[in-house]
């Protein structure tokens, strides 16, 4: 319609609309950017978090920008492995064996203690466990023996921070604290150069590699969860998922309700009565319990949920509102004239009745989107989220399940919550501005 | 002079009415202006209209849609919309200066008590949940501090005058036929004993026979009560049933004011002539004519005579707006009558 572009120019007059559009544009931008940078299958794989995928991430680490709010330099994860930073010396000692000494040095400049310490040892050698000695050299030159005879296995993880004997050795301090604590002030870590040394006698043909992970307290832009997953994956991917779910559900519901209302009202008689009856029954049935039932008994796939949500929302109160509007519209003389020159029912419904109210669909549909976005999040929090796809709701659900509030991991639930809120605010700003633009002009259509 | 309704209307410090001029006109309107603010400018709905009406005489205001006749009625009754831009002029009712009255006084002393109105299709706006009798009595209850009993008694009286059986006081609007409803509305207008009743298209929604009945009733009421009517309509034939004098409006201005005998037979102004020629007659064999073109926009009326564009008798003087000339006992706004 020619008038449409004139109306669009008026959009600039509504600052709320512009603000809303900016917010949503950012989300749309993210939604486009994310699948390119992190393809869907990759995201699913990462989120599934099979063993080893996230092993270098700290558990429940806060986002790095938290540092801006503290005076301390918070520790980040340090990974030292033989290939990159370690030094290895090998010395054959006859009998087909060699003595190996691997040193993993690193610098520790932080004001806080690491969260965890782990040592990954890999030996390319099948056979009897060969003993190894592990020692730790602190920044001020002290040497602490970690283990004297650790039997090497093909693939071994030494959970240093959970070593109870080491803990006793360190006067009851947990190893990841005690190994770093400054002798003067056990509350503060000693900054400087540290070293982990392993010595062992292994067969000459064998290869020995190590990786020391000193887990920090902060990680990534969004932190990590209890499974060490970088929350950015879920937050980024949550955007397109939320938008797609919300938009499809909103469009589907709005359009289908509109079409069915027009059809029922025009055809009248049994069709109209049936639709009304179905709507009235449906209004009584609560949505969430039905979804929960369906989710538990049948499938939790997000697409199935989407379809169900749309189906249950079509025969809602909006249908009754539209019906009232169409009842009035169908009395217009031009509709009778159309019948007189031979228009059939479907033509009248689609080309004469529906265009009448079409402008109201736009604000209606925009305002419905956040409802569905929140619905998806609600389902996830209730444990009915899609099992594989990372969404904001899933993050929330994990946070609640793990007691994030109790443990002080505020970022864990604040981040998805704020994102959900922003989506809601953005669409509401747009929707209510559109409402003001389109609705008073209804009379000119 | 009230320039804009946004400013407070200042009361004259003494609220004395001007002394009634005996034998003077019942209603005198001078240079009345009513302009509205529209989204794209100012609409000059009523543009410097002046006329007088004598006691006991009835006036018909004729013109086509958009000529300003309903706006003129609203101006007289000070029923102004929110987007009014200018409301000026002088109006005297029996010598009383209406424009000087405060809103409060106008409401109490003039509106409905002296000048009442029967609106277009008011019969369809009767409150469906009130009894007809209560509605008709309502104007008396609002400001006149009449008791409900007295008000209903008066309602009974006016029902008798308009010819509605008393029983209908207890009925609801939907139980009345169209003609009855219209009579009820007329009763509502009469209930405060006004001296002028403005009728705005009182019968346009009615059938021919019902219309004739209502016209009969209005004639009878006029005789019995000595009322004056201001009858506004686009139905010229019907207007002749009540009119003693006719005011013809075009594009917000008064173009002719003459007695009924002259106007319906030999109007003076070219527009009035063409208007009368376009009215079909049943009893006289005369093929009606039509006027080509359209009235000018009231947003930016053209300079000069507003009818000049469509006038078959225009000449170069018409580029300048003519004043209202007196021609015998009539007034015409046309250069053709300059000599007088």
């Amino acid at each position, binding site marked *: *319609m*020619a008038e449409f572009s004139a109306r669009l120019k008026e959009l600039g007059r509504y600052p709320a609309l512009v603000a809303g559009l900016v917010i949503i544009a950012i989300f749309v931008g993210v939604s486009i950017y994310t699948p390119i940078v992190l393809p869907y299958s990759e995201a699913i794989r990462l989120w599934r978090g099979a063993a080893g995928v996230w092993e270098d991430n700290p558990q429940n680490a806060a986002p790095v920008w938290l540092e801006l709010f503290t005076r301390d330099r918070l520790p980040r994860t340090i990974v030292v492995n033989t290939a990159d930073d370690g030094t290895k010396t090998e010395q054959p000692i006859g009998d087909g064996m060699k003595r190996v000494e691997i040193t993993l040095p690193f610098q520790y400049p932080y004001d806080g203690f690491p969260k965890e310490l782990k040592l990954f040892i890999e030996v390319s050698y099948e056979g009897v466990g060969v003993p190894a000695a592990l020692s730790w050299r602190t920044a001020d030159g002290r040497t602490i023996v970690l283990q004297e005879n650790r039997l090497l296995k093909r693939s071994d993880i030494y959970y240093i921070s959970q070593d109870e004997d080491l803990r006793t050795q360190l006067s009851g301090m947990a190893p990841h604290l005690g190994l770093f604590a400054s002798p003067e002030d056990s509350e503060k870590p000693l900054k400087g150069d540290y070293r982990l040394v392993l010595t062992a006698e292994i067969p000459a043909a064998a290869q020995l590699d190590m990786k020391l992970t000193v887990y920090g307290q902060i990680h990534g832009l969004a932190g990590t969860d209890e499974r060490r997953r970088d929350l950015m994956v879920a937050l980024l991917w949550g955007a397109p998922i939320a938008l797609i779910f919300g938009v499809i559900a909103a469009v589907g519901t709005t359009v289908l309700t509109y079409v069915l209302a027009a059809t029922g009202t025009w055809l009248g008689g049994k069709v109209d009565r049936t639709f009304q009856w179905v709507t009235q029954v449906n209004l009584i049935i609560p949505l969430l319990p039905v979804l929960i039932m369906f989710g538990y008994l049948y499938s939790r796939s997000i697409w199935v949920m989407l379809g169900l949500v749309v189906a249950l929302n079509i025969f809602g109160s909006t249908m009754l509102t539209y019906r009232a509007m169409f009842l009035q519209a169908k009395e*217009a*003389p*031009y509709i*009778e*004239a*159309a*019948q*007189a*020159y*031979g*228009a059939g029912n479907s033509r009248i419904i689609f*080309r*004469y009745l529906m*265009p009448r109210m079409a402008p109201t669909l736009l604000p209606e549909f925009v305002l419905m989107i956040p409802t569905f976005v929140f619905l998806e999040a609600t389902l996830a929090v209730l444990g009915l989220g899609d099992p594989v796809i990372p969404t904001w709701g899933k993050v929330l659900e994990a946070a609640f399940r793990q007691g994030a509030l109790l443990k002080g991991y505020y970022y864990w639930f604040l981040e998805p919550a704020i994102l959900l809120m922003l989506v809601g605010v953005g669409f509401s700003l747009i929707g209510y501005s559109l409402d003001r633009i389109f609705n008073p002009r209804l009379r*000119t*259509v | 002079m009230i320039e804009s309704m946004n400013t407070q209307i200042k009361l004259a410090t003494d609220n004395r009415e001007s002394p009634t001029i005996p034998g003077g006109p019942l209603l005198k309107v001078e240079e009345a202006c009513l302009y509205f603010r529209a989204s794209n400018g100012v609409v000059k709905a009523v543009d410097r209209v002046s006329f007088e009406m004598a006691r006991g005489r*009835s006036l018909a205001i004729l013109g*086509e*849609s958009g000529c300003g006749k309903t706006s003129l009625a609203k101006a007289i009754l000070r029923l102004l919309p929110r987007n009014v831009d200018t409301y000026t002029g002088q109006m005297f009712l029996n010598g009383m200066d209406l424009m000087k009255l405060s809103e409060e006084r106008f409401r109490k002393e003039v509106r409905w008590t002296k000048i009442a109105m029967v609106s277009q299709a008011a019969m369809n706006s009767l409150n469906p949940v009130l009894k007809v009798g209560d509605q008709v009595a309502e104007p008396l209850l609002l400001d006149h501090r009449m008791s409900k009993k007295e008000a209903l008694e008066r309602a009974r009286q006016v029902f008798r005058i308009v010819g509605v059986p008393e029983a209908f006081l207890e009925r609801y609007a939907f139980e009345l036929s169209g*003609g009855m409803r219209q009579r009820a509305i007329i009763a509502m207008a009469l209930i405060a004993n006004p001296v002028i009743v403005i009728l705005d298209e009182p019968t346009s929604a009615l*059938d*021919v*026979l*019902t219309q*004739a*009945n209502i*016209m*009969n009733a209005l*004639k*009878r009421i006029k005789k019995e009560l000595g009322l004056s009517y201001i009858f506004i309509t*686009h139905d*010229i*034939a019907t*207007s*002749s*049933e009540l*009119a*003693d004098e006719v005011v013809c409006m075009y594009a917000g201005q008064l173009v002719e004011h003459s*007695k009924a*005998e002259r106007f*319906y037979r030999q109007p003076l102004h070219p527009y009035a002539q*063409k*208007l*009368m020629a*376009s*009215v*079909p*007659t*049943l*009893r*006289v064999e005369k*093929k*009606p*004519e*039509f*006027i*080509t073109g*359209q009235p000018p926009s009231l947003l930016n009326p053209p300079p000069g005579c507003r009818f000049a564009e469509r006038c078959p008798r225009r000449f170069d003087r018409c580029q300048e707006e003519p004043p209202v000339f007196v021609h015998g006992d009539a007034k015409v706004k046309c250069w053709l009558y300059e000599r007088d």
Partner: protein
Amino acid sequence: MEDKALLSVRELRTWFELKRWGFLHAGFVRAVDGVSFQLKPGEAITIVGESGSGKTTLLRTIIGLARPTGGEILFDGRRIDGRKPEDVAWLRSHVGFVQQDPYGALAPFMTVRRILQEPLAINKVEPSEYEDRIRVVLEEVRLIPVEDFLNKFPHMLSGGQQQRLVIARAMILRPRLIVADEPVSMLDASVRVEILELMRRIQQAHNLGVIYITHDLSSVRYFSERVCIMYAARMVEKTDVREVVQKPLHPYTQALLNAIPDPDPDNAARFKDTPAGEPPNLINPPKGCRFHPRCARIIRGLCDQEEPPEFEPTPGHFVECWLYK
């Protein structure tokens, strides 16, 4: 030798069933109760009646928007009262409908071009012909230059222009009959004649049959040949326009004509003679002649007992009144 009638209506009845509580039968509204008339090709007739007389229902039955309950309708010799789908479709492409409210009759969201295209598209006219036919019909109703109007929306046109568009739309399928329901009552007085003259011109140019429905006999009598007066679902008088004005026979017609005012200053001094009462409701019309409760010339014992048949006191002039036995 009688010309073959374009439209022949015989004893047409259209009754609407009243249902109490949605399913209990509670009587019939007999909106059209035994109406017969004929229309020759190229002839214009006016059906005059007040509200509640059934004239609108009669019109809607003729053009297929209401289902007849009894009687016959023959259009161009073909029976259409059976309402078989192919008959109805055929009828609709040969009858043009002009409605009372010009603005309401036009879809406000469609341009002029689209409004005129719709009947063509529905009736399977070749798309290549669209432009031509639209142009021709717009020129015929004098909405020119055509280009100026094609892309306008209805609210951009004046009342008169809107009605011309409605007429154009009625004409675009090249109908044989035009049915107009109060085509000018919502227009200004000075525009009415213009529109009526336009319709007359079109009628004569294409030899169309025209049925006007109106209550305003004064204006329409210049544009039609015959008049049928309807009262309470029956046609009480049928004759030439001239006859009905000069020599109305039925008391109702006489009362009607008497009540129509001419612009005459002497009117203000006279009271009109009007019949008392109201038109009867159509569920239970009065016994006998339906006008008898209001008739000044009633014959007691006859008019209130038996419905009068049609009499023809002068050739071509039909009355349903016992006075003319």
